[in-house]
């Protein structure tokens, strides 16, 4: 049997050339390197009194084997000034060379020349498992091997679980092997300094965050995860309706509300159509692979499959979860991994060409794009409604969620819907809790947020046939997309307008969604008009209780470890744009509806 996997790279980003003996005594394998890797260095001049001005180009060009790949010119007014000030950033050369040469160049550079590694940046992702504020990475010393064994119910080993270990330095991470074991190497201190462990299972279990732990060196430290069935008895053979669907009252709709006749696009990482609940998803294109007609079903990330489950999971072969629109025609347009604006534009072109009605865009970028904005406007003019995630960076809404042509969705969470020792609990900010609902700290906010929707501990489909509970505005967005599909399919106002693929129909759809919002937080920048609620959609046929189909999860009794995270749930919305009663109707929306009916348009 192979030894435990160790996927933890050395701090410099390279795999170690010699492996340490594995804990079980097996001989380490040393893989030869095909070629010496090159590294990037930045070279620039530094003004030093007493030294003649230096030329970075001359220095770099004087060394063989150094390839200049980029020049960063000074910008701004200073770039044109004579006698640049000491504080001005000089021209920077970016050069590639092998590491030995780079170290030699660093060592031999005169005082008036700066040579430093052009290190990789890491993007800030607030959904990363854990972050200790104020922790400064320290110089790597002797690594400490932490042996972790991950098990589920009954001691069953859990392979492919990602384990993060947090000490005083950089976090380490690894993936468990078939025995559920992994050795993670961390630097910065002895094993007693390890402050937390986060374990993310591949499927069918809750994740787990362990803090203030005492780990043993040289021995296996076992972490047991709770199965999803602890909360959802008999799942997935016995069906459940997620807390998000219940909040939006999907469980109050008759199953005949199924999205039949509506075309939905999901621009994401593909969709595993082999999943028992997604076999009806048969259309798509892989835009990372020249528009390939088959590889869209290979979802390497799982993100698109998770979104697809929320939107359209069907209970034909297994009860599982309830998707919003299981009879809709879903098109999976794959742009991840590696997507760029050009891929997004290609995908939106596909949406227009395929005459899709509503498109889920659980994606964003740190940069704006005029061309993407134009394409989204064009899609809207063609009757394609784009529903977009606000972002997870805890800051202002990201592009394209900032565009006025889309419906932007922030995330909401609900207490007692996840174990207290899960990472989901880390998304709770005490001052953002209102009753049982809360605004998770990761969600982006701003005046562009149109609605809030469930986006914490959302159980949905993942590749391989399983289920996982994930967080993100990405998970909130498909709740709204699914509801939009049902309104397009079944609301009389939109049924009549379905043939007319134009901007007006999109505006009507967004207006209906917004008019059904229930505010829970009282902060429109974090929830817009609130969470859309089927019971508050004006003009929608009266929903009926499902009765026998009531899920096992409906109204579960609190269990040990599922407390309110210190916040007493109260459970009632603080306000509603629709009024206090369940069947209240927005007067403006009703008036619009009556006018259209009087005009014979519906």
């Amino acid at each position, binding site marked *: 049997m192979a030894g435990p996997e160790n996927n933890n790279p050395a701090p410099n980003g390279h795999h170690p050339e010699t492996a340490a003996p594995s804990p079980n005594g097996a001989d380490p394998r040393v893989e030869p390197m095909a070629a010496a890797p090159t590294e990037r260095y930045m070279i620039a001049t530094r003004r030093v009194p007493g030294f003649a001005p230096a030329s970075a180009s001359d220095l770099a060009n004087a060394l063989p084997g150094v*390839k200049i*790949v*980029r*020049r960063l*010119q000074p910008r701004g007014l200073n770039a044109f000034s004579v006698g640049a000030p000491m504080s001005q950033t000089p021209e920077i050369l*970016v050069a*590639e060379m092998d590491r030995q040469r780079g170290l030699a160049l660093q060592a031999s550079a005169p005082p008036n020349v700066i040579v430093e590694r052009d290190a990789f940046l890491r*993007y800030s992702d607030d959904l990363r498992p854990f972050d200790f504020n104020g922790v400064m990475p320290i110089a790597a010393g002797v690594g400490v091997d932490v042996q972790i064994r991950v098990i589920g119910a009954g001691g069953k080993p859990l392979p492919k679980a990602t384990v993060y270990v947090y000490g005083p330095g950089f976090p380490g991470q690894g993936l468990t092997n078939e025995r559920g074991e992994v050795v993670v190497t961390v630097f910065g201190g002895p094993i007693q300094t390890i402050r937390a462990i986060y374990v993310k299972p591949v499927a069918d279990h809750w994740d787990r965050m362990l803090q203030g732990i005492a780990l043993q060196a040289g021995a296996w430290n076992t972490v047991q995860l709770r199965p999803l069935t602890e909360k959802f008895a008999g799942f997935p053979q016995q069906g459940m309706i997620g807390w998000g669907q219940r909040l939006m009252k999907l469980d109050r709709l008759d199953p005949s509300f199924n999205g039949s006749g509506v075309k939905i696009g999901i621009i*994401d*990482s593909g969709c595993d159509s082999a999943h028992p609940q997604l076999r009806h998803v048969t259309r798509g294109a892989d*835009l*990372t*692979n*020249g528009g390939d007609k088959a590889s869209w079903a290979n979802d390497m*990330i799982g*993100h*698109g499959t998770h979104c697809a489950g929320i939107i359209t999971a069907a209970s034909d072969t297994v009860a599982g979860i309830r998707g919003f629109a299981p009879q809709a025609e879903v098109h999976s347009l794959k*742009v*991840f*991994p*590696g*997507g*760029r*604006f*050009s*891929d*997004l*534009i*290609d995908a939106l*072109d596909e949406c227009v060409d395929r005459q899709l009605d509503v498109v889920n865009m*659980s*994606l*964003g*970028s*740190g*940069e704006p*794009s*005029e*061309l993407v904005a134009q394409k989204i406007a064009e899609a809207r003019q063609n009757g394609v409604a784009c529903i977009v*995630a606000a*972002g*997870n960076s805890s800051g202002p809404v*990201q592009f394209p969620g900032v565009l006025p042509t889309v419906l932007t969705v922030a995330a909401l969470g609900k207490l007692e819907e996840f174990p207290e020792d899960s990472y989901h609990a880390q998304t709770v900010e005490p001052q953002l809790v209102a009753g049982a609902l809360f605004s998770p700290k990761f969600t982006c906010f701003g005046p562009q947020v149109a609605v809030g929707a469930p986006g914490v501990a959302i159980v949905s489909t993942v590749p391989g046939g399983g289920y996982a509970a994930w967080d*993100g*505005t*990405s998970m909130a*967005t498909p709740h709204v997309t699914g509801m939009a599909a049902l309104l397009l399919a079944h609301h009389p106002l939109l049924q009549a307008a379905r043939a007319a693929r134009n901007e007006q129909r999109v505006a009507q759809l967004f207006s209906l969604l917004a008019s059904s919002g229930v505010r829970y937080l009282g902060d429109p920048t974090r929830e817009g008009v609130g969470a859309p609620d089927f019971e508050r959609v004006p003009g929608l046929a009266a929903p009926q209780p499902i009765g026998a189909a009531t899920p096992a999860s409906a109204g579960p009794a609190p269990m040990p470890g599922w407390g309110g995270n210190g916040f007493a749930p109260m459970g009632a919305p603080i306000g509603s744009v629709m009024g206090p009663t369940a069947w209240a109707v927005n007067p403006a929306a009703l008036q619009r509806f009556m006018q259209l009916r009087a005009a014979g348009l519906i």
Partner: protein
Amino acid sequence: MSNLPSPSGGVDQFLVAPRSAETIGDLAAFEQALQSLPGASVLQRAGKPDRPRLVVGLSAAHADQLRNQFGATLIIEPNAPIQPL
């Protein structure tokens, strides 16, 4: 698009498209100008005949230069990565 060879070094990807139907012809002039720039290349041709667009690889400095030359009639912007949220 994403399976194209990744531009190396200081070469970044840019999206280029006409600002209006009247300026489609400037795209050909842009391509002509691109050929004279070392390391610059067209990575992808996309869009429709009436709405063409290019993905090109070129340095930021060259992109600024071309923006000065064609910015009035062509949109030239970074082909930035997008992320799942």
